[in-house]
């Protein structure tokens, strides 16, 4: 008899909550994107899923007119943006508390994610991010390394997501 083991990594995966950061949703039409980029001192990438970073602030393009900005707490991005509001109309909304961020790491992290993410997470390049779904929750998934992801999930969805992740974690540990 051959007993085929499936290909899961039974090495542990780590699931942690990360401390809050400043998180802003920036919306601006293409015509004024450069202006905003300039005053924020940031590149605002145009490809959905692309990221850029400067001086501790990170920008992720989520849609053709939507960027998620993250920065250490206390960073003031609102004041410079407001200064150009008249010329470059936009919306900059603080959503720091809307989501919480989980860090998922370990050699089995792709197995963990493939339990509930329909998109091909393995094909995501390191350094990219995407808004996608995890089971019934909309999440933003950041690939920070081969084995390392961050997941932003709306606060009230987090217990559900954590509970699913824990189930899969146990399953991975069981090795079947």
């Amino acid at each position: 008899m051959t007993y085929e083991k499936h290909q899961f990594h039974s090495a542990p995966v780590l699931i942690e909550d990360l401390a809050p950061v400043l998180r802003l949703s920036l919306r601006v039409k293409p015509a004024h994107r450069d202006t905003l980029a300039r005053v924020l001192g940031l590149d605002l990438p145009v490809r959905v899923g692309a990221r850029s970073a400067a001086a501790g602030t990170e920008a992720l393009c989520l849609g053709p007119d939507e960027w998620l900005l993250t920065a250490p707490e206390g960073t003031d991005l609102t004041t410079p943006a407001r200064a150009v509001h008249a010329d470059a109309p936009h919306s900059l909304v603080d959503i720091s508390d809307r989501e919480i961020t989980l860090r998922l790491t370990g050699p089995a992290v792709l197995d963990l994610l493939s339990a509930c993410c329909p998109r091909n997470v393995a094909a995501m390049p390191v350094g990219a991010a995407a808004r996608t779904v995890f089971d019934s929750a909309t999440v933003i998934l950041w690939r920070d390394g081969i084995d390392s992801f961050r997941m932003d999930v709306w606060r009230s969805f987090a217990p559900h997501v954590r509970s699913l992740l824990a189930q899969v974690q146990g399953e991975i540990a069981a090795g079947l």
Partner: protein
Amino acid sequence: MSRYRISGKGRVDHAAPVSFTFDGKTYRGLRGDTVASALLANGVHLMGRSFKYHRPRGAVTAGSEEPNALIGTSRGPGRFEPNTRATVQELRAGLVTESQNKWPSLSFDLGAVNDRAYMLFSAGFYYKTFMWPKSFWDKVYEPVIRGAAGLGRSPTEPDPDHYASRYLHTDVLIVGAGPAGIAAALAAAQSGADVTLVDENPEMGGSLLSDPGVAIDGRPAWDWIDAQLGRLRAAGVRLMTRTTAIGYYHQNMVGLCQRLTDHLDSPPKGAPRERMWRVRASQVVLAQGALEKPLVFDGNDRPGVMLAGAAQTYLHKYGVRVGDAPAVVTSHDSAWYAAFDLADSGAKVAAIIDTRATVRPDLLDAARQRGIEVLAGHTVTTTTGRLRVKSLRAAAVRGGTVSGGRTIPCDCLLMCGGWTPSLHLFSHTKGSLAWDADGGTFLPDRKTEAVEIAGAGRGLWGYDPVLADGAAAGLRALQGLGRAGHPAAFRVANDRPGTGTSHTELPTDGNPGKARAFVDFQNDVTAKDIRLAVREGMRSIEHVKRYTTNGMATDQGKMSNINGLMIAADALGKQPPQVGLTTFRPPYTPTSFGAFCGYLRGETFQLTRKTPIDPWAEANGAVFEPVAQWRRAWYFPKAGEDMHTAVLRECKATRASLGIFDASTLGKIEVAGPDAVEFMNRMYTNPWTKLQPGRCRYGLLLGEDGFIRDDGVIGRLSPDLFHVTTTTGGAARVLTMMEDYLQTEWPDLDVWLTSTTEQWATVALNGPNVLAMLKPLVQDVDWDDFPHMSCAECTVAGLPARLFRLSFTGEIGFEVNVPARHGLTLWETLMEAGKPFDICPYGTETMHVLRAEKGYIIVGQDTDGTVTPQDAGLDWAIGKAKKDFVGKRSLSRPDIVAKGRKQLVGLLTEDGSLLQEGAQIVLDPDQPKPMRMVGHVTSSYPSTMGHPIAMAVIEGGFDRMGETVFIPMPDGVRRARITSTVFYDPDNARLKA
């Protein structure tokens, strides 16, 4: 060891006995056995009873297509399951099994009286009878018919196991790991393609596992398999056994069910029982092989009558000889090999009966060498034996006439009516089939997906062509990915090529009207049934199927479809392709519900959203109610309080002093940008232009059909920033609707929408003492300019906040929004600060009562998707001067402006009793049924005013103020007076205080 087990033979572990029970009796098998092979090794053929006639049945196959040998299995409490294929279930220590559909026992079953009356139970018999006397249907006939239902018994306890699922993205998915599938995998695994090879069996190798005498590239078949699997593993190919491809969905999505623990003696802790894989493959190769067809003749269903290929599998895979004196009846060469292998293993083969007049000389030679009698050009007309076949009657067929029958004793009868390519998955894709007249079978034709079909699955026979075909298919799949690879060639020795012919029922000299020649074994469909269906006008094969139930059993026609088609076509005088096959549907084999559920069970069945303040509510004894995806505190009972007393206490405390309420679930949308006000004007019925920053307004949102969709208080924080609130259930819907208008209708507007529902935790404070309590905690608010319906960004309890002065209770009220992480802190601070005022936490029920007393509506309760603003008395919320807003045009349609629409009013019962929400209202309580109803009660509560209050929609209600209406309830008619909806403080005195 039993005399049917050949020592040392097969892939079972002869050194590892495993015991199990069947119908209470303990048997021994070997590690690697299935229940069926172990029972056969013990000489047990009788494994079940058929559905309708309760005929004794044995395993007819050795695989997942088994229609007869269905058993119940269990592994302790909650782990019973019916209808498991004994031919698939692997032995494990302590396995308990039982036979089905019998009473009192498998060998003596009273239900078998049906078999005596079989002439009555013809196809479709129940449509023709049980109609008189009419009253007997409910009382007598139906209960009897329903009582006879089913095969096994249902589980009756919750299942302690859990189930898992995965998404998998792969370049090439290969279904079936026989020679074709393995060759395809070898080809596809070149140039780094990601390849997945799956097989439903515990081991890979397919039919080669039953054909060990074949040699490939100079190696015995089994060595060759091991070597190739090693190569595939080394190339990184994902090899998945016990994994059935159950369905082929759109765009190369294939569902796989992997069975993880049913074969294990003791599964590891935390291991799921089964896992559903949703595979997205760029290319799919179907190498599912072919299914052997039974032959249709009288008595072809007795235990001991089985497929020749199955006998060969029992012999080679399990080392089990299915009988000492097998006879063979066939129309295909392949069964000859089974006969030879059995003879070589020591069985005395009674005869090979071939329906064909001429047979390949080498086969005849080989039979002669083994001393096997050959009857070519013969048919089998019947068999004998009650619980096991004892003999058959063979007769010669010449020019269509049957003559000279002769009885041949045997202890099993191996049949083969040729092979049918497994086209199930291919057919799920709506790929078309073409009839192959030579092979008497359907083959895959036009494809709709990126798929290749290889091997016996497209009608090829013999290992040499099948291996070559598999390799070519694998290479094409690789090329389909835009990658290159080398073609492979295999050298096959001792190949077993073969051809055959197809039949309807075998010719017989008996009375065909009396023949029990089974086509669908499980459902007891005979050839005669199919002919009867055709005679009765069932010309479509789909009608034949439904009238006779042919192909509707748990094998889904794997045994019966083609035979049924051949017979139906014959009866119709048509060619099989003109008749066609019935539709193949997922799953390929029956698949547990658990595997479909995956993680959608228990607490992860569907998510439950909780607010930041929820832990406090839980700790303080709140009773919760589900509202949309949220759970919300419903009320906070104190010791000994029921809902009614708790709610009344909460209401009174709020009216008297101060109440506190978690409103965090309210939807919130930030509408920002220079065109925000224009956007608001277009979306909402209300006018927004003149609303000053720092003020709020009730907003009403309609659908384009003019009916109320949502509402909420909306604050203008600055000229181009609105803080919109929505109902709890409407949050996502409203945002989507707004985005839709913005993106598709008004992309020119400079305005953006951001959901902030979860950014803010919201605490509502209401009551005459609210200002006294709140003021000291607030900074940056000019209280002299902060009247009712104001809003401000400020600091509350040291936290950054958005403060709204508004009321949903009729008392002075505030909503404090703070960043969600501080929600609980804010709540606790306010509770502390409220102590001097006997602050009272209240839940959604009190909120409902208080708002109802004040006549505020709840969208979804007082309105139901058929209510316009006018109907709800919300005319005032419509910006009359606005030329347009979403839904405006619909408000002037004829039936919307017609008289007599139902309008929202208040109701007070004359006897002071509480009305039921949903109670219906009439004007004349004495009319006969059906009564003319003029409306219904939408909201009804005991109130703080000493008498219950209600709201209702009533035809022409606004013009009926003061009139009496009637509410007929089962215990008597209530009388109620129509009033205004505002019961409490109609002059708003308390808000202005």
